[in-house]
């Protein structure tokens, strides 16, 4: 049985977010479900402009059909009739009698089917000609596009410092000529912010042209307010809830929630308003459970930060760390600067505010050099007050996850906490080795 099922069955917001993540994307494969809106693929949490253009952003794996859909479909139908809260209570009730074994598997299925699909997309990427030498993320993303490009109207390509990724963007031309680019100047020098603002304007007009909708300042402000609130809630989970001595669920579930948030944060499950509502509920439920002491005392468990996760990582890690007496935390978007707020003032230019947000991410987070990036790792680890740090050396990554030598030195000098590196190639490939490495690492806390 899943480590998480007991926790999640009464955790409505989590169930809802998982449902939305796995299910709400697939329906967009059918054109009539898009209600005349354009479907635009996004990666990284840069979907604000797409929402403002009244289009649908989608992280393309969400167009895939997941095995668990039959269970979740039933839940969704029930939720349509009785509401999510009632469904969740009902599930909790049924679980007590344990005669519907099927529910034991729901969350396991969510996680497993996602991982299974990721690996499938990875294999497809390789089949379609991506060299084995590239990172897990690029191979899987290429596979996703190869699988679902017919359903997409365009791809939003936001330039980052990773040259492999920029080349990957270009390679998508093979599937879809409609590539909408957003260039971010690599450094904030001279009037680079002005240039970035013009770039954002260009991208916005390409989106307007594609969708036939104009993007007004108010559309942007409204969207930024929504996404800012999501960012604030996200930071609250990372810095406050994850730092507390009592967790609203067991620590492995907590890691699972952090992972789900980080994956779904890229396209806000294609519906920013619902996503925000779920996010609010999630934080509320978490706090309530902590207040009522529903969950788990984790005061004696060391907090371990694992990063980077977004290009690919072994999801089994948090179960292993849990079994070894720790709690594993994920905070990639905060490290990469994507959880900073976008300035929203009634009389300022929102396009410029968005440009500033992107420039800050480029210079302080994802950065143009490893110095800035490693400083960011240190900043977040310090602020989260973690006890240890696990760094993922992702095979084939030449950008974000190749600065371990530099990071290790900074951690030693500035944080003085244990650190280790795990190599990663494909989900499920190296679990035994991961177990051994994590075991040795966790020894340091005994």
């Amino acid at each position, binding site marked *: 049985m899943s480590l998480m099922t007991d926790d999640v069955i009464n955790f409505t917001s989590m169930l809802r977010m998982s449902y939305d993540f796995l299910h709400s994307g697939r329906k967009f494969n059918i054109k009539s479900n898009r209600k005349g809106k354009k479907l635009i693929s996004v990666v990284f949490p840069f979907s604000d402009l797409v929402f403002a253009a009244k289009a649908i952003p989608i992280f393309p794996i969400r167009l895939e059909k997941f095995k668990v859909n039959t269970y979740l479909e039933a839940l969704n139908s029930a939720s349509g009739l009785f509401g999510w809260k009632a469904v969740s209570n009902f599930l909790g009730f049924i679980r007590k009698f344990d005669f519907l074994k099927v529910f034991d598997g729901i969350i396991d299925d969510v996680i497993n089917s996602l991982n299974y699909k990721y690996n499938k997309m990875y294999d497809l990427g390789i089949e379609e*000609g991506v060299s084995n030498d590239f990172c897990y993320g690029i191979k899987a993303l290429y596979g996703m596009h190869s699988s679902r490009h017919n359903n997409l109207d365009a791809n939003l390509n936001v330039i980052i410092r990773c040259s*492999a990724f920029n080349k990957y963007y*270009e390679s998508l031309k093979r599937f879809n000529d409609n590539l909408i*680019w957003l*260039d971010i100047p*690599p450094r904030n020098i001279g*009037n680079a912010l002005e240039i970035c603002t013009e770039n954002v304007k260009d991208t916005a007009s390409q989106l307007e042209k594609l969708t036939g909708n104009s993007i007004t300042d108010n559309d942007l402000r409204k969207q930024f307010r929504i996404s800012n609130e999501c960012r604030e809630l996200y930071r609250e989970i990372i810095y406050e809830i994850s730092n507390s001595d009592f967790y609203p669920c067991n620590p492995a579930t907590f890691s699972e929630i952090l992972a789900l948030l980080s994956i779904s944060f890229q396209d806000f499950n294609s519906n920013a308003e619902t996503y925000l509502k779920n996010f609010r509920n999630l934080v509320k439920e978490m706090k309530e459970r902590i207040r009522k002491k529903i969950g788990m005392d984790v005061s004696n468990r060391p907090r371990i930060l694992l990063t980077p996760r977004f290009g690919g990582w072994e999801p089994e890690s948090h179960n292993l760390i849990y079994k070894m007496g720790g709690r594993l935390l994920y905070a990639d978007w905060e490290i990469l600067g994507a959880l900073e707020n976008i300035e929203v003032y009634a009389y300022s230019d929102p396009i410029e505010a968005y440009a500033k947000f992107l420039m800050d991410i480029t210079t302080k987070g994802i950065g143009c050099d490893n*110095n800035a990036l490693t400083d960011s790792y240190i900043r977040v680890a310090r602020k989260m007050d973690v006890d240890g740090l696990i760094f993922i050396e992702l095979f084939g*990554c030449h950008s974000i996850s190749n600065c371990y*030598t530099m990071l290790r030195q900074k951690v030693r000098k500035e944080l003085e906490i244990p650190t280790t590196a795990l190599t990663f190639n494909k989900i499920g490939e190296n679990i035994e080795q991961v177990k051994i490495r994590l075991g040795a690492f966790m020894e340091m806390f005994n």
Partner: protein
Amino acid sequence: MVDLEFFLEYYEFLKQEKEKGKKIIAYMSHDNIPEELIDAAGFIPLRLIFSGNDELMDRGADYLPTSTCSFALSTIGLFSVKPNKYRFLDLIDYLIVSNHCVSDICSSEIICKYFDIPRIDFYVPYILSENGLKYYRLELIEFKKKLEEIRGSSISNEDIINSIEKYNKFRKNISKIKYLDISGSDKLELYQKALLYGPKILELRDFNINNDGQIKIKNKKNVILTGCSIFLGDDLIEIIEEGGGNVIFLDTWVGDVYFSQTLEDNWLDQQKENDPFDILTEMFNRNTYTDHVVPNFMEYKIKKIVSIINNLKEKLGISNIGVINHIIKFCDHMSLPREQLKEKLQAKNYFVLNIERDYARASHGQLSTRIEAFLEMI
């Protein structure tokens, strides 16, 4: 392949320049570095275009994962091992950290940090657009400021224009060798030496570019080499020649991609009174074949290869030309589009071979077998 004597000569050359008070500014970046500004500042640009071997790659892997491109690993390795013939690396005063690719950023940063070389940043936009050009100009301004700070005085526009003319003449001269009736390895050697010496090569060497009219390469199995450059010390071109082939055209950065970046004389004359940054920015704008930029790299590449093949047919009467796409293992720029490039060229009925390799000695045998089999097909 260049011999030991060349390295000694080059060391002497740099030493003499340094003794004259010139600073040596090195960089890994393959393209878009405004060496005209370095020259106008009175400094010497030093391109790090040296290939590697097992030992250098291993030493590089002390700093970056082994899944980093072999060229980048080896370049770090060079600074770590400092083999005797490379002692000219000790003469470097500054290193440019640039973003030709992300391996360029990471390895240059490591070289500066761990081998104590002051860095100068110069970043290039990824998208060639009006705004990209505006940004490139900003970097030029910053770069000039930095060079002025180092030399302690300002660089005049006149000096920059002079350097632009000097480099333009240099590129034009060297670019003539592309249709010359000499072997691919001889061409490569000239390109490599020219890149290291810069315009000085026209003064230093008895550089006489003449075609004697005998088309000796006609009897060979001719191939165009595209993709990653063959760096100094790499014997790939010899392997091709030993297999009975000849690289008739080097469509790589150490080759025609760099040397075809020329400006027409009358255009340049008209620009002389203008801001030299406009000229340098225009040069970046025209550099459409660079593998750095997106989103049209592939289209331009295909177009260029087709035009090279047509020109070779027309100028030298050579048909049946194969294409070898050279990919240094883990190269971001060349590895990802390799299958698409091959498909598109094959659709035009060209013979194409993708060779992906690192600098490990052990892979040589397999490499020559594959190349020989390919040459057989032509």
